[in-house]
């Protein structure tokens, strides 16, 4: 799939559509969020993208543990990196949004805190990798920690935030699903931009990762040739 170009075109088309429609479409009246709801097309897809990229990363980590190859290790590391970039962007877009809606960029909302913690868990993954000089050992330790970190994402991002009070939709005493914009279901006009945006941003993450993977492969090859 990497070598084919149709999905790259699709990414570009979807993202152009997200920007044009996202800024021009008539959004529904949603109370005090009306002025800032368009950020929904940028903030929420970041978290979708992060989750997808981390999931791919853990799949490659498991693949590495079953059959150790340098390729799976590179994939696992690069997908985790791209996921972390998406997570940081999610926090930043969220902080911008919060600045206008809640009055301050960081209000110690449980979902903000736990998302930051999730990113710290993955930051520790990169530190662990860098602290091991031996290549095989690094890959193995990284893969083991990656699986552990991914399992820890569930209580951190999916369970605990839903149990406590939050300014975000979804939480104790708050209706709705945090990924679906509050209410029971996403508004129909929002939906026709939102889902393409999710797919577009996620594909962009995959695209960036495949470029990084090719770059890493090239570096690997150079290293091998230099040793010979």
């Amino acid at each position, binding site marked *: 799939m990497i070598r084919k170009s149709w999905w790259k075109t699709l990414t570009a088309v979807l993202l152009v559509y997200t920007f044009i429609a996202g800024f021009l479409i008539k959004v529904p009246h949603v109370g005090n969020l009306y002025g800032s709801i368009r950020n929904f097309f940028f903030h929420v897809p970041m978290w979708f993208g992060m989750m997808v990229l981390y999931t791919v990363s853990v799949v490659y980590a498991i693949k590495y*543990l079953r059959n150790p190859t340098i390729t799976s290790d590179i994939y696992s590391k690069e997908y985790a990196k791209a996921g972390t970039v998406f997570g940081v962007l999610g926090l930043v877009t969220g902080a911008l949004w919060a600045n206008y809606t809640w009055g301050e960029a960081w209000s110690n909302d449980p979902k903000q805190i*736990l998302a930051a*913690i999730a990113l*710290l*868990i993955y*930051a*520790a993954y990169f*530190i*662990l990798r860098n*602290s*091991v*000089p031996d290549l095989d*050992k690094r890959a*193995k*330790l990284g*893969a*083991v*920690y990656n*699986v*552990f*970190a991914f*399992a*820890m994402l569930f*209580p*951190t991002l999916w*369970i*605990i935030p839903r*149990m*406590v009070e939050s300014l975000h939709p979804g939480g*104790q005493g708050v209706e709705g699903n945090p990924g679906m914009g509050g209410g029971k279901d996403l508004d129909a006009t929002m939906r026709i931009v939102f889902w393409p945006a999710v797919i577009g941003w996620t594909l962009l993450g995959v695209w960036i990762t495949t470029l990084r993977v090719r770059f890493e492969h090239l570096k690997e090859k150079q290293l091998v040739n230099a040793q010979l």
Partner: protein
Amino acid sequence: MNSFKTIIALLKKDVLLEIRQQYSFYGVLLYVISTIFVLYLAMGQPEDDVWNGLFWMIQLFVCVNAVAKSFLQESKGRMLYFYSVAGPVDFILSKLLFNALLMLVMSIMSLLLFLVLMGNPLRQPFQFVGLATLGGVSLSLVFTFLAAIASKAQQQAALMAILGFPIIIPQLLLLMKIATIAFSSVIQAGLGQMVLLLIGLDAMVIVLAIILFPFLWKD
């Protein structure tokens, strides 16, 4: 049955080593006493939520210190010996059990010291004792597994703290939230759910340790 015997034997060896050398037990105990004493000098007798927060932070640091030794003390030669006599699952289970036991003792010790030095704001002491032991065991499980990972890398002790602190925060937040019940006479709603979540987390950590440790074992 055989693996059960191996686990018991390994556990017995750790306990015996502890009793004979007494180095790490008293070392950690001294750490607990001096930290809490310094806290007492600095804070006197703090308010409820400060007391609660300090208690769990102390638990965290005690746990890092107590558990770090379990893998770091094993030399390469000795690990090779264990490799030839026991399976990876037996080994990690014995370590998990031993550290849980150690943290159980340490949690109760530090709780007693807290009650003596920092005052007793607890309205429901028995629930808090139960929670402190459960919390100590939960912390020890996570850090045992992280110690196993860190022991394979360089700068082991520092790395363990770096890996552990982000991972432990959700659990610690949960513990602090549950612990607030011990400070009021009203029982909160959703308490059972949170305790169940904590136990579920522990179960997940144990299962992950059993699945993942064999990969760390072969070197």
